[in-house]
């Protein structure tokens, strides 16, 4: 390519959620002329419908831009978008590994938030040049000086040159581009060396097979090259090379320092491991020195996913396999539940990740699903000295075989205005947390650090935090390890038959409250049967709550003559359809809606 490495800049934009990262990216695309205003639509880089609807970025996207700087020279800017949510931290670090610099966007009406800090640490880990910018200066509540002060105090970044900008109006965007050229270092690979390229994203294209997004460090990749994946030890011939500008554009080669995608008729995504290094297949041009790669991300949250209609099981399996090609961060294995039939136990990075997978399955694959209550992974130490990992409450060994249970803990950082500190502290205490630190980020903002059981965080922590702080608190957490806890399994039983899908593992002090809540909720949804139905919550053999669904006394139409016949027949046809969607638990029929409603409860 005609652009020398010295004129290439690879950068990301990092920010707390809602601080305007995607809008700023849109503006950059517009200013560099990559997107004409005819093509422009909001959040250009967020390709998935879910991303645009939820206003978040899930999969990192990237785009190559041509920029004529004030020095009159042409630069190639590779903008690598990153997700902002804590669940997708691993995507952030992958994206950052392809960069030399990062624009840190801070909302000047909000200041530094929990994920601002988390993302900065990720960028510092990668040794990136960080350029703070103060966004949303068009808003009346913007306070640039205070925000700068906060960045300097809390993060320790020099804000003397920080650009004030607005993704909305475009103010300051040109200055940001200039700073990228001036401050972000060019890539430092060896263009003449043997090929080494880092895979930092993969996805599946129905026509081209598995696609890989790479950052070339040394050497270059040309169309027709035979390449080798160093970890999976497989070889392919490159059929297509390209980059997003932001539409896919075919290229002849990707040189050192550049970013682009490769298609090579790769049928199996298992051959394309994110973090793998690509080199030439030819021994003479082959590198033996693989790049460090990435830590494998481990799912932290588990839930069962079951088709509402059991005949959809094969379709669900296909859908999960396809999604897995796009999102290697979740995993799944066959599972079966007495109440819900055949399905899959799936592991996710967090709750948002789980919701997104569920939504994509339903939306992109048109499936009706029941997702069971999410669970963390417990370490169970048995009396016989063995240890098991339990990611499904139904699989917890009987109490008499359990010596102790350990549960995962997170270190939680919460940024909150001083007014709400009391409420947040009492929430954390209530969630069995222990306080580690409390410090002032500025006069009116506090950073609270707590250690909390991850299970409690999963349950409803985020909602509660938002509610006690009127939406002003932000949080970020990382898993720090396991600690023993007084945990028990609560089973829900219907006429004595356990409903395995509804079992939960919970701290013993909360068992009664949760058990009663679940029973009450279930009662609302279990239709009357011809006999009384007892709904019970139990720990081991001990009943801790009971609700009764009274027996149905009659189900009969009084009048059925000439004109009524069609209408009554249709009612019974509907009644029949309803029965088809019932799950038989012992002698009791429970509608799918009951499971859906209960598994959705968050209190």
């Amino acid at each position, binding site marked *: 390519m005609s652009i020398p490495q010295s004129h290439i800049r690879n950068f990301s934009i990092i920010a707390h959620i809602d601080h305007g990262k995607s809008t700023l990216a849109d503006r950059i695309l517009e200013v560099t002329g990559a997107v004409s205003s005819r093509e422009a639509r909001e959040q250009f880089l967020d390709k998935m419908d879910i991303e645009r609807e939820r206003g978040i970025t899930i999969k990192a996207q990237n785009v190559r831009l041509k920029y004529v700087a004030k020095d009159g020279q042409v630069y190639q800017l590779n903008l690598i978008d990153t997700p902002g949510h804590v669940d997708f931290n691993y995507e952030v670090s992958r994206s950052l590994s392809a960069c030399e610099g990062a624009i840190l966007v801070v909302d000047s009406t909000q200041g530094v938030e929990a994920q601002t800090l988390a993302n900065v640490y990720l960028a510092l880990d990668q040794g990136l040049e960080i350029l703070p910018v103060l966004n949303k200066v068009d808003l009346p509540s913007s306070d640039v000086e205070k925000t700068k002060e906060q960045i300097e105090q809390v993060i320790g970044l020099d804000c003397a040159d920080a650009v004030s900008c607005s993704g909305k109006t475009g103010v300051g965007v040109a200055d940001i581009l200039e700073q990228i050229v001036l401050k972000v270092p060019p890539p430092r690979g060896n263009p003449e060396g043997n090929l080494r390229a880092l895979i930092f994203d993969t996805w599946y294209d129905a026509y081209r097979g598995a696609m890989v997004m790479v950052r070339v460090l040394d050497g270059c990749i040309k169309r027709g090259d035979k390449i080798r994946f160093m970890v999976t030890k497989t070889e392919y011939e490159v059929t297509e090379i390209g980059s997003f500008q932001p539409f896919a554009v075919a290229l002849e080669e990707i040189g050192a320092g550049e970013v682009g995608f490769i298609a090579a008729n790769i049928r199996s995504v298992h051959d394309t491991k994110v973090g793998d290094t690509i080199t030439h297949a030819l021994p003479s041009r082959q590198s033996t020195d693989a790049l460090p790669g990435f830590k494998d991300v481990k799912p932290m949250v588990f839930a069962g996913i079951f088709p509402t209609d059991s005949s959809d099981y094969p379709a669900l399996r296909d859908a999960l396999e396809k999604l897995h090609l796009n999102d290697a961060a979740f995993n799944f294995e066959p599972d079966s539940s007495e109440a819900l039939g055949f399905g899959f136990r799936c592991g996710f990075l967090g709750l948002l990740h789980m919701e997104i997978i569920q939504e994509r399955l339903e939306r992109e694959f048109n499936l009706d699903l029941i997702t069971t209550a999410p669970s963390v992974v417990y370490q169970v130490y048995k009396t016989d000295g063995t240890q098991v990992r339990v990611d499904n409450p139904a699989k917890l060994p009987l109490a008499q075989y359990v010596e102790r249970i350990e549960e995962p803990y997170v270190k939680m950082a919460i940024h909150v205005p001083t007014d709400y500190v009391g409420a947040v502290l009492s929430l954390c205490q209530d969630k069995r947390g222990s306080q580690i630190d409390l410090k002032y980020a500025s006069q009116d903002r506090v950073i609270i650090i707590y250690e909390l059981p991850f299970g409690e965080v999963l349950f409803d922590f985020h909602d509660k935090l938002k509610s006690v702080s009127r939406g002003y608190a932000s949080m970020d957490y990382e898993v720090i390890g396991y600690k023993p806890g007084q945990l028990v399994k609560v089973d829900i039983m219907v006429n004595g038959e356990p409903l395995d899908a509804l079992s939960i593992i919970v701290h013993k002090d909360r068992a009664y409250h949760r058990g009663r809540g679940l029973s009450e909720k279930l009662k609302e949804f279990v239709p009357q049967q*011809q006999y009384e139905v007892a709904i019970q919550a139990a720990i081991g053999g001990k009943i801790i709550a009971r609700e009764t669904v*009274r027996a*149905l*006394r*009659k*189900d*009969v*139409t*009084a*009048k*059925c*003559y*000439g*004109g009524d*016949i*069609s209408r*009554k*027949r249709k*009612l*019974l*046809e509907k*009644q*029949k359809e309803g*029965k088809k969607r019932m799950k038989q638990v012992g002698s009791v029929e429970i509608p799918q809606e009951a499971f859906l409603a209960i598994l959705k409860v968050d209190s």
Partner: protein
Amino acid sequence: MQRASVYVHFPWCLTKCPYCDFVSYATERPAVPHAAYADAVIRELRARAESFQTKEIASIFFGGGTPSLWEPAELGRVLAAIRDALGCAPQVEVTVECNPTSLDRARADALASVGVNRLSIGTQSLKQEQLSFLGRLHNPQGALDAVTDALASNIARVSTDLIFGLPEQSADDARAQALALADLGLRHLSCYQLTIEPGTRFGELARRGRLPLADDGRVADAFLAIDEALAARGLVHYEISNYAAPGEEARHNLGYWRGEEYLGLGCGAYGFVRNELGGVRWRNEIDPARYLERAGWGSMSEEPLDAETLLRERIMLGLRLATGFDLEAAAADLGVVAWTDERSREADKMLKSQRLIREGAILRIPNKAWLFTDDTAARLF
């Protein structure tokens, strides 16, 4: 010859009852176009008669609304036209629905003189507060008088309706009323549990949570209490809501429950005729003015019914009868499979739990499981 029946709907009442979801419009008696309506029904009869000419008409039923409001002479003109146009059985049952407010001895005799031989009287309750709740114009004495007059008249057969399952009504109260009616000498009684239908005033109130509702358990108890009391008087519980001395069953309604065809005439009437694909259920225009204009020019809507659908209807209706029905004969008649795998499976389960009884090809529901007939039928759909 195939049996069939004729239903004539009369769409006017003196008031609209809050539970009623039939086509009926409140009107003053002088405002009813007695002759014009008879003309329109006769016009429609002529247009539709053809497909019923090969059938034997076992029953002619005037329902409503309140057909006892109709000038007996005009009703008689319609009846004569039906007899004239179609082949009627020698013992054809001719029923007219009546309200106590528009029935006395003279009216009953007048109806008898034009060929009516059965009356169905809308008593509904023998208690004033219940009649008021139900929006009825008559009082308990009026109801008793109407029934007594009818029994003393030249009309051969008399039935009356009772509604039970009113809010706060005890099983004892329902039983006492059923017995009081039976003791007047009635040989046919219909006892309906009050049903709240959408589109009625009660339905609207219930939707807004402003209608007192009866407890299901009490309604079931009342159902069982009536069953027991009337059985002791020799009235057989031959259909979920109907009781009769042997031989006194309503032939018209038995036709519906056996899946027979019916010629529906008049504003808002339904008709059903079979064809090579299964059958068609049609509905007539529900606006009286438009009906008067267009009678004889087709239906307001038609619902094609395939053979499988008709079999489901036979199941639903046949299981309402104490004698049950012959599933295999019904299936053969319709040309479909009686025992699909799913239906066999469901039937087996219910046979085991005694929700259903099978005697040869006959399926029926035992008395004690009658309260769950809808569920049973739906499972066999």
